[in-house]
């Protein structure tokens, strides 16, 4: 990439060929486009709001959180809407990433080395998304769908038969628990544990070293282009 083109990228956020991510820009590598980052923060915001308002209704221990939303009645009113806004952003990310999230043989290898990965001993060769990210993507997609379907039943209880409600309440809570644990891990690994990762979602760029270390095959692919 020429210097002039790099300047153009900085201003418009895309290359001359219309690429918005997955290209080298000087010392940096553009990992996520502006649109992806905005939508990821969108789902982050509404996940947190849905999580807090949902926690308040999940357990008496967390009912105090209803104060954040103007009381119990208001919390029950806004919780489904937070979720709808979360889902709307999630659909964008899902469509954007679904092809890249297909499982490959190397992903099984990555999972086999998970212990070594967490001990910072080795990072197996991966494309743009590693197996952990793919698992989180699919868990969030299926979990989001399950929360949406059971959530609609809980939202309008008198519109659905009793047996469906009997399934929906415990399923909604089970998926909520698993989703929460997955997000705790997602947040920890990307913000606190692996240095240089968070900027992929703030500036959209990562360093070359980070790209080579964490996603070697992805870096090779975009470098050759």
């Amino acid at each position, binding site marked *: 990439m020429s210097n002039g083109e790099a300047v153009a990228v900085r201003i418009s956020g895309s290359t001359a060929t219309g690429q918005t991510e997955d290209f080298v820009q000087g010392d940096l590598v553009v990992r996520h486009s502006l649109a992806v980052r905005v939508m990821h923060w969108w789902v982050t915001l509404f996940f947190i709001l849905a999580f807090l308002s949902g926690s308040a*209704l999940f357990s008496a221990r967390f009912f105090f959180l209803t104060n954040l939303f103007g009381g*119990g*009645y208001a919390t029950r009113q806004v919780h489904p809407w937070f979720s709808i806004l979360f889902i709307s952003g999630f659909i964008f990310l899902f469509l954007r990433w679904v092809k890249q999230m297909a499982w490959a043989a190397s992903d099984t290898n990555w999972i086999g080395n998970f212990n070594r990965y967490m001990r910072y001993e080795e990072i197996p060769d991966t494309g743009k998304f590693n197996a952990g990210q793919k698992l989180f993507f699919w868990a969030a997609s299926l979990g989001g769908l399950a929360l949406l379907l059971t959530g609609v039943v*809980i939202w309008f209880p*008198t519109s659905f038969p009793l047996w469906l409600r009997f399934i929906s*309440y415990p399923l909604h809570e089970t998926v909520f628990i698993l989703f929460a*644990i997955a997000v705790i891990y997602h947040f920890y690994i990307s913000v606190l544990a692996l*240095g240089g990762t968070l900027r992929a979602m703030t500036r959209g760029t990562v360093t070359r070293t980070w790209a080579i270390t964490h996603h070697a095959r992805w870096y090779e692919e975009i470098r050759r282009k």
Partner: protein
Amino acid sequence: MPSNMEIRRVSATLGPPTGVREAAKVAKLIDTTTCIGCKACELACQEWNDLRSEVTEQLGTYQTLPDLTSNFWNLIRFQDHEKNGEFVWLLRKDQCMHCDDPGCLKACPAPGAIVQYNNGIVDFNQANCIGCGYCISGCPFAIPRISKNTGRVYKCTLCADRVSLGLEPACIKACPTGCLQFGTKGNLLDIAEKRVEQLKSQGFKTAAVYDPPGVGGTHVITVLAYGDRPELYGGLPRNPTVPLYLGIMKTALKPVGNFLMLLAVVGAFAHFMRYGKREDKE
């Protein structure tokens, strides 16, 4: 919600409930065999509780409304029945049964929105209600109704306000045949059993007292001529139980879920303390 009655159970609240004094368990007895369908109890309920019902629709029956509503808590159900080729009515007073083990209270996520007093009455406190409708699903008798105006649930209070002052519920006061009685549950069970014996001697071999054990018994007990078929009486459930999912959620999901989420945070913290932040040197 009367403040002078002590509380035995309270929804979504940590720690023990506040009632320290024993109270006699009260009950209402409904003898469906001596009910004449006069609906005086319906009117008394509306008057005492100052409720104004919606306009009804004619469904070819004497029943006042097709169903209970958020401001109609006491409905005499008129069920057609054929006995030896003759038409008879099976009349039942449909209302909150005041379960001793209330599914609504167990399902409620709002602290203090549903209480059970020491005398067994189950009461809603609309000031604390969040309008989620969980109680509607948790109730084995499908009683609570959400008000379109307030978004909160309502049902029969067993006239807790009157009972707290030593008065009997309004419907009891109005009943002209004595088919409604109010007193301690023990006394009323004796009266009900005597009535059942009488009915049996009159040829109603399956007459029984409806006091279903699946909900810990109820504080509204009913004498049925056809005790083996409660569903004849406008769909009274044969074996009502506190829904299984409530037990799973209360005793397993919530504590286990809270523990697992805490464990995830502790796990992340432990990992951070052991391995720290990974920095990739240039």
